[in-house]
């Protein structure tokens, strides 16, 4: 308290510590920072990879969760997961956010303790390098823990597998998530996305989720907003939300006064083979990019009205960069383009069409492993192109290769599907994508929704 008068004097003199300068605005291309996994909650459970089993932690039969809006609302070992306090379940390292790490022995996010690390919370002990509570029975533990040998532990379960007097509190359920379509709505981010049950990958529908931080979303409403619909793209004009999406007939549009209840759909561009539309309002017309036959095509028209002049505007060959020389930036060959996502961005007077897309190609020269050359196979990465609104078909491709491509352990390039960007009010970009890996068979193993942030980490 004695420091307060001194700080006031220093502040009056302009000598008090000041916040550091923040990073400048991003161009929306580079550098991206991996912000990790996006949590999409349906009720109290988050959506996990479609091929992963359900996951959760055993809790006493009568245990009840406390509602929360932030981690600070919860007890020391708990986190705020889908609006309630619980010890967080994890299956992979990226499920936990630092300083917590995934304790794979118990499938829970844990806080490390020991020399040089922060002390455990009051009433906890540092046991085996992690903070633990002591207990006589499970009622002494935090939600997501059970008492074993007088220690609160995590016991993972997949719906079954808990002891008598316990139940499996599922935190994660598998769900196929594809084609995210985020929209900035005031201080919230609304995310439309295509969901399907893991056992019925073709039973797709468009859902709507809402978030205040762009990382933790809750599905709202808890049912689809567009049934038998795929790959949404949202345009908001004069308070009306227009959803462009595809179904068996072709490319459709439906409108809604609240973004939730959509009216009847009308087909604006018929034909099969159309996928992943992305619409933007520019120059008094709506421009819709979409994927077709492994390339990116475009059509235009009045907002909500029929689209005309569909034509291919970016072939895979046209997106190739460089000649593959090691040490140079390249992206070649490219065999398929998919999932375009369009945004009108830039300062007043110079707003241009920014288009992100997924491209399947080779962007890396061989690496080496223990002295042996290691080929890096082609994969889906995120590319970028831009065009003037007056000539939206004349796309100029980012000349330095993909703008985002994740790498595990130096050499493993994961796939990024369905890129979708937003620009927040403070000039930051978020780039959502669906994580995937691929082998020859099956084509892809879908992961979860992830997000990059444009803000460089120099603050």
């Amino acid at each position, binding site marked *: 308290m004695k420091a307060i008068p001194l700080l006031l004097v220093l502040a009056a003199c302009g000598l008090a510590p000041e916040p550091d300068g923040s990073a400048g605005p991003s*161009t929306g291309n580079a*550098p991206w920072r991996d912000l990790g996994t996006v949590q999409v909650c349906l009720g109290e459970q988050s959506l996990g990879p479609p091929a992963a089993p359900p996951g959760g932690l055993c809790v006493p039969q009568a245990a009840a969760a406390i509602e929360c809006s932030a981690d600070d609302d919860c007890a020391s070992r708990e986190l705020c997961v889908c609006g309630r306090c619980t010890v967080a379940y994890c299956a992979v390292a990226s499920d936990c956010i630092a300083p917590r790490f995934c304790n794979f022995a118990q499938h829970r996010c844990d806080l490390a303790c020991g020399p040089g690390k922060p002390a455990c919370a009051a009433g906890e002990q540092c046991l085996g390098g992690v903070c633990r509570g002591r207990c006589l029975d499970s009622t002494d533990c935090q939600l997501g823990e059970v008492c074993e040998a007088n220690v609160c532990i995590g016991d993972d379960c997949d719906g079954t597998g808990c002891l008598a007097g316990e139940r499996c509190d599922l935190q994660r359920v598998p769900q196929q998530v594809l084609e995210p379509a985020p929209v900035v709505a005031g201080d919230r981010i609304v995310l439309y996305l295509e969901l399907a049950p893991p056992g019925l990958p073709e039973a797709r529908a468009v859902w709507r989720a809402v978030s205040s931080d762009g990382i933790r979303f809750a599905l709202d409403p808890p049912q689809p907003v567009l049934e038998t619909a795929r790959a949404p793209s949202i345009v908001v004009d004069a308070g009306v939300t227009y959803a462009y999406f595809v179904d068996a007939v072709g490319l459709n549009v439906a409108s809604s006064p609240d973004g939730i209840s959509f009216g009847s759909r009308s087909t604006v561009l018929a034909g099969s083979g159309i996928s992943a539309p992305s619409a933007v309002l520019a120059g008094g017309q709506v421009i819709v990019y979409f994927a077709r036959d492994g390339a990116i095509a475009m059509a235009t028209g009045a907002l909500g009205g029929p689209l005309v002049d569909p034509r291919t505007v970016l072939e895979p060959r046209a997106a190739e960069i460089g000649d593959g020389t090691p*040490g140079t930036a390249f992206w070649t060959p490219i065999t398929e383009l998919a999932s375009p996502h369009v945004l009108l961005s830039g300062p007043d007077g110079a707003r241009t069409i920014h288009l992100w897309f997924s491209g399947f190609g080779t962007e890396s020269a*061989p690496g080496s492993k223990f002295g042996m050359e290691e080929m890096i196979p082609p994969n889906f990465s995120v590319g970028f192109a831009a065009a003037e609104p007056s000539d939206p078909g004349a*796309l100029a491709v980012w000349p330095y290769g993909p703008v985002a491509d994740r790498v595990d352990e*130096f050499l493993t390039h994961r796939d990024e599907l369905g890129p979708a960007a937003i620009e927040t009010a403070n000039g930051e970009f978020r780039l959502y994508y669906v994580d995937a890996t691929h082998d020859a068979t099956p084509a892809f193993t879908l992961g979860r929704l992830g997000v990059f942030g444009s803000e460089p980490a120099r603050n």
Partner: protein
Amino acid sequence: MRRTSLGFALSLVVASTAAADPLDELGFGAAATGMANARSAVAVGAEAIHLDPAGLALAERPELLVGWQYAHDRLAINGDDADLLDAHGTSLGLAIPVRISGVQLGAGIALYLPDQFLARIQLAPISEPHYVRFESASHRAVVEPAVAIAIGDWAFGAGVSLLADARSRELVFDVGVVGGEKQGDARLDIALPVRIAPLAGVRWRPSPRVELAASFRGELSIDLDLDIVANIEVPNVVTGDATVSLRSVSYFTPMRATLGTAIHPRPDLVLTADVTWERWSALGSGVPDLRVLLALDIMPPLVESMREPARFRDIVTPRVGAEWRTGALRLRAGAGYLPSPVPSQTGITSFADGARVLATTGAGIRIEPNAILAQPIDLDLAIAWQHVARALVRKDAELQPGGAFSSGGDILQASASATVRF
């Protein structure tokens, strides 16, 4: 380890800062601030050390200048606040004249000490729009010792402006797992060798109504020269060395030459003008050279970083000022036009900048010797306004498709100082 491959490529490409001397921006003492720094032909004593060291020999008595300056940036990028850190710091100047056999000699030192840092080195991503000349402009210390001699109507001064580089002699980290235990060790030996830029000035009073001045300052910068070696040993996972070599130039302060004149149309009025040439073209790349050399069991393919020459232009900045004395009061005003040395940023770099218009005003009062004071004290205040012209840059579509940024805004300054004589 998970990261975007861009982390291996473009994030290695970062831009450093280039800035005029903090005292060129803020003024050394409120009298200089109030006259747009156009005082090289009239400054004497402590305040002359930075403007024209020849004036150091023209002080009649030892004097101490103590001042404090504040600059508030209201600059925008793409219409949003660029959120630059305000600069503020303390100026100290000491002038000691000595008369030997009719020859006036002077010695002194000018110091500027920022309140927040001695210096601050920032390397921003190359494509990120940022104010390369303003974001750190006034965030470094200035140390300028000087000597001078006055003979008749002439005076000559010389000194140096001091700064330091940062060079690693040994910067090695050993990390790994040995016998199942995490190991970490470091050896650091970083030198900060002194950098020197010469200062020189000459002053001539051809008539009682006219004073002329010429001054020169050499180029100065903080050069970063770091070789960081990480020896990694995690058996059966990855072993080897990773070397990161960083060469950067920060606080590039160009060579400059100034011609100044002062005219006294009336005994109570002085009109001044300074014209300064600054050699920004010597900046070179403006982008640091950052190289990564990996010798690991597992090595990702790396992409060479891009280095574009900055192609900054030399500039000439005119400044004018006026001071009217009425009794103990001094009223001052000044103006200047400061063109931008930064070329059109249509390529990969995004240096925000713009031509500036400068308007200043100030006032001072001289408290004459009295029953308490043995010598006069000058108390001065000044405010300044700089307008940075708005610029809208559209990138070359072949280099940065869709790239564009706008910049511009204002910089507000205030300065207060006291000059005490002994």
